């Protein structure tokens, strides 16, 4: 027999190492399960508490006066959709064109700064956006308004859409651009008709993801859109929104409003989940890599 090593791990050491190995595998699994649990818990309670309150009146009626049972969130749902439309009106053009600039034009250094700034903006707390738009649009006009709320959400969308658009455009192979250039097509046409068209799915999913993000935002609306217990007839008036309504109902002392808060939360979550699933389905069909 050849020489044995001058040391060798004792059987106890070996057993301990094997034991530790197995225990850690179980611990890691437990951690993964713990991380997944909250989603299921939240969804479960949303359905349990909210589903029973989802009736026709919930979707069609306005909130009843304080303390009175019944009523619905029709204005909040409509308000959220209105605000999202306005947010898109700002976020989509600026975001997409900004992304186009980053992907197709500009210099290395300048673009690095722009990207860096966009990332910084993405990290700004949403309540700060509310404060900024308050100073910009609420104070001068002396009124809370849907405009202010829409602008706040829209401004939040811009850096988000910009980055996702850039990421998708960069994935379009350079060969397409070169082939088009060689055919003598104008640069802007190449970008719009060829590059953006190729990346369209990615751009759309990026916009949808950003919309889903801002749809759930409450903080920026607290002092811009403010909320409204009635229909808004003008965009220069305060407007209701689902997250705002959920918030004010949840912190109220009335059980009936709590019930409705759950229902509203279920509707909001369903909206967001639908968008996310749509995005996932759209993304699955296309593989660039």
């Amino acid at each position, binding site marked *: *027999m*050849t*020489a044995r*090593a*001058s*040391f*060798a*791990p*004792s059987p106890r*050491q*070996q057993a301990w*190492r*094997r034991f530790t190995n197995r225990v850690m595998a179980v611990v890691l699994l437990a951690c993964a399960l713990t991380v997944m649990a909250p989603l299921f818990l939240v969804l479960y309670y949303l359905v349990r508490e909210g589903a029973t309150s989802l009736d026709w009146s919930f979707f069609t009626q306005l909130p009843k006066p304080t303390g009175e049972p019944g009523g619905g969130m029709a204005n909040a749902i409509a308000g959220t959709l209105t605000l999202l439309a306005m947010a898109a009106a700002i976020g989509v053009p600026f975001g997409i064109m900004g992304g186009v600039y980053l992907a197709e034009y500009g210099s290395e250094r300048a673009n690095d700064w722009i990207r860096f700034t966009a990332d910084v903006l993405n990290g700004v707390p949403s309540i700060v956006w509310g404060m900024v738009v308050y100073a910009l649009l609420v104070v001068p006009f002396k009124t809370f308004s849907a405009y202010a709320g829409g602008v706040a959400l829209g401004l939040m969308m811009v850096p988000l859409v910009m980055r996702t658009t850039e990421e998708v455009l960069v994935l379009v192979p350079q060969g397409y651009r070169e082939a088009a250039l060689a055919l003598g097509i104008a640069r802007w046409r190449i970008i719009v008709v060829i590059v953006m068209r190729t990346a369209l799915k990615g751009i759309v999913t990026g916009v949808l993801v950003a919309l889903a993000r801002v749809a759930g935002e409450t903080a920026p609306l607290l002092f811009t859109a403010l909320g409204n217990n009635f229909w808004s007839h003008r965009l220069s008036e305060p407007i209701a929104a689902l997250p705002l309504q959920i918030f004010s109902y949840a912190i109220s002392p009335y059980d009936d409003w709590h019930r409705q808060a759950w229902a509203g939360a279920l509707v909001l979550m369903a909206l967001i989940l639908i968008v996310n699933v749509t995005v996932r389905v759209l993304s699955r069909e296309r593989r660039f890599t």
Partner: protein
Amino acid sequence: MADRIQPNPLIPPAAALPAAAAASSREPPAEVAFDIADLSLWYGSRQALYEVTIQLPARRVTAIIGPSGCGKSTFLRALNRMHELTPGTRMTGRLRLFGQDLYSPGVDPTHVRRRVGMVFQKSNPFPTMSIAENVLAGLRLNGVRDPALLRERLEQALRMAALWDEVKDVLGRPGVSLSGGQQQRVCIARALAIEPEIVLMDEPCSALDPIATAKIEELIRDLRTRYTVIIVTHNMQQAARVSDRTAFFYLGRLVEVDETRTIFMKPANPQTEAYVSGRFG
């Protein structure tokens, strides 16, 4: 068959072959380190090794040569059960290390890898550790705590890797701060520190310059006094320089294995002859 011999311009003449190669024919027959029978290996549905049967002698250097894709690295990795890290691999056949079946159900792969060390093609010292910590990593894993013992093994391993004089004053420097050749020798020291019975080397010099390569080849020749070395190389001159025995693999099969001199000067198999005379590969 003797008339077919032509002097191979790539291989140094017999007189220039290292004395070790000549000496091995005068030494008593070596003990068998690895006894391998009908080893076949699949990656998923693709078969990579076909019924390889070979005996690798102890305290000798055996080189494994062959063109790219012939299975030599796969074979090497089967010797310390490293192929099991790739999902979907399957192996049949028998592989014994000093009489012990390495693949029998009760055997722990980590145990196997302690006895059969490995040096990789690209040096891979742990970047967050110093030179000393790198070399001692295997020892610490196995529970050695005594500082005196650790110091002794550190010096021993670095001396064996012919690196002690170069790094003895800078043992605290990060392992990755050394040159490529030095890093590879750190990896060799790391493998030697745990006193394996076998040292596997997978093209250890392919990423190194000629000077570093020469140092490592000298090291390999010195190692054979205490260790069994199996080295995979695509460089035939290297195989001729360092090894006692050479095995030629082609398309997943062992074509021929014999003393290095024989393989390079009088190979029995025409395929071997074609490869070593540079006609393909």
